[in-house]
């Protein structure tokens, strides 16, 4: 009885939260097309989220390419399929591993940052101060951040994928004596638009999810400074789960087109 009531409460709370996030997203779509546009703030956010994440994404991508190639190489050698390495690595990274890993990294770096920043602005009444000065804080703080993550994530993923392929090419150059030119020729031969386009489209949704959940958690943060920590933490946890759900849906849809 107790378990079932807890389960019911949990389900109600889950669906209430989903409803609130949907309302929040609805407000974003209403406000994104209404005047005035906050271009300056949007550019500032794009710079903050894009430029300042480059190093982290680059290092992650490079190590991802290195490790992935090092781990796969012995198995491919065993089957005499070492020549397939560039194709296998590029398709895996571009279609799946690159977007998901980089989106998860960005959920940690950007999503938690947004959650903490807006949460702290909420508890120190900065959002109220903005509203009192006749500015729409939702438009200034939320719309610009969600747009910035939606626009920046695809760029970060493309950058991260390229660096990952560089890492992989380096391993092949050192261990397999494959030149960079030959490696990248094989990479571009094996990649089709059907690999690149769906993978890039889904990164827009990943970016939107990171911005949306980070902003939702931060903007509605309560309970003083403890609430700021909770907002930041919840932003990462919920975004990570949502990324996998979006990825599943994206793969499912693109699979229909392949068939």
């Amino acid at each position, binding site marked *: 009885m107790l378990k079932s009531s807890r389960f019911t409460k949990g389900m109600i709370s889950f669906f209430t939260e989903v409803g609130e996030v949907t309302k929040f997203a609805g407000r974003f779509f209403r406000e994104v097309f209404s005047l005035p546009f906050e271009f300056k703030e949007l550019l500032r956010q794009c710079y903050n989220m894009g430029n300042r994440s480059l190093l982290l994404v680059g290092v992650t991508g490079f190590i991802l390419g290195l490790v992935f190639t090092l781990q796969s190489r012995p198995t491919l050698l065993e089957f005499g399929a070492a020549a397939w390495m560039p194709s296998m690595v590029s398709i895996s990274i571009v279609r799946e591993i690159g977007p998901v890993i980089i989106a998860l990294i960005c959920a940690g770096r950007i999503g938690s940052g947004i959650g903490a920043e807006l949460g*702290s602005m909420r508890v120190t*009444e900065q959002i109220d*101060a903005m509203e009192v000065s006749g500015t729409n804080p939702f438009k200034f703080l939320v719309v610009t951040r969600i747009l910035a993550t939606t626009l920046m994530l695809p760029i970060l993923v493309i950058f991260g994928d390229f660096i990952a392929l560089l890492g992989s090419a380096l391993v092949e150059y050192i261990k397999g004596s494959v030149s960079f030119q030959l490696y990248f020729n094989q990479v571009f031969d094996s990649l089709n638009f059907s690999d690149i386009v769906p993978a890039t489209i889904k990164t827009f949704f990943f970016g939107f999810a990171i911005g949306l959940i980070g902003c939702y958690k931060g903007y509605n943060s309560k309970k003083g400074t403890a609430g700021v920590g909770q907002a930041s933490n919840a932003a990462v946890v919920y975004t990570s789960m949502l990324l996998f759900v979006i990825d599943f849906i994206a793969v499912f849809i693109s699979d229909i087109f392949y068939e």
Partner: protein
Amino acid sequence: MNNTKEHISQNPDPRPVIEIKDLYKSFGNLKVLNGFNLKLMEGENLVLMGKSGSGKSVMIKCLIGLMEPDSGSIEVLGNDILKLKQQELDELRTEIGFLFQGSALYDSMTVRENLEFPMRRHTNKVDLKNTDELVLEALESVGLASAIDLMPAELSGGMQRRVALARALILKPKIILYDEPTTGLDPITAKEIILLMMSIQKKYKTSSLIITHDVDCARVISNRMILLLNGINYAEGTFKELSSSKDPKVQAFFK
């Protein structure tokens, strides 16, 4: 400190700039405001005192449109704020300066950007060519022109409160709302802030609603006082009248 009770008396026929009637607000079963009434006259300094949790901040948030009351009416400069559209409310808010308890400066912006922020959003009220002059003038009136390019984190609590006051003044509002302006400050800085509030009131001819626990602040600055108890205005009068009241509940505020 001299008091500035003369300003309201200079105006022979003061009109109400804020009028609150029968304001009710509750959170679940907790009734916070229980038929609260208030009238702030032009040029007046009205002090609202009440215990912590008595609903002072809720009232001020209802007044500025940050919170919606359950019932009652709130008129600011002749506008019923509960009936205004968002854009009209935003316009009206430019006539109201708000000093938050914790200053609420935007910590990602410099002092200059904090002051420019409201101006850039209300270009109909301010000529953007003069932003530098206006920022400097507002900072000079709070004695902090030298802090113009500092970040809020580089300022002391008292300096942050002064910058917040300059930001509240930047659009030349007709009304200033102070939410516990001296809370958290040492007595000397608190006195400086009170003096500053008085000089600003003289210079800009504003009407002020001041929420405070600070009896010294109330004594010096108030033309009139309201004591908020159990969600209603329990007592009203001048500082002298209330401080000499025999009612133990009123006396408790002045001990």
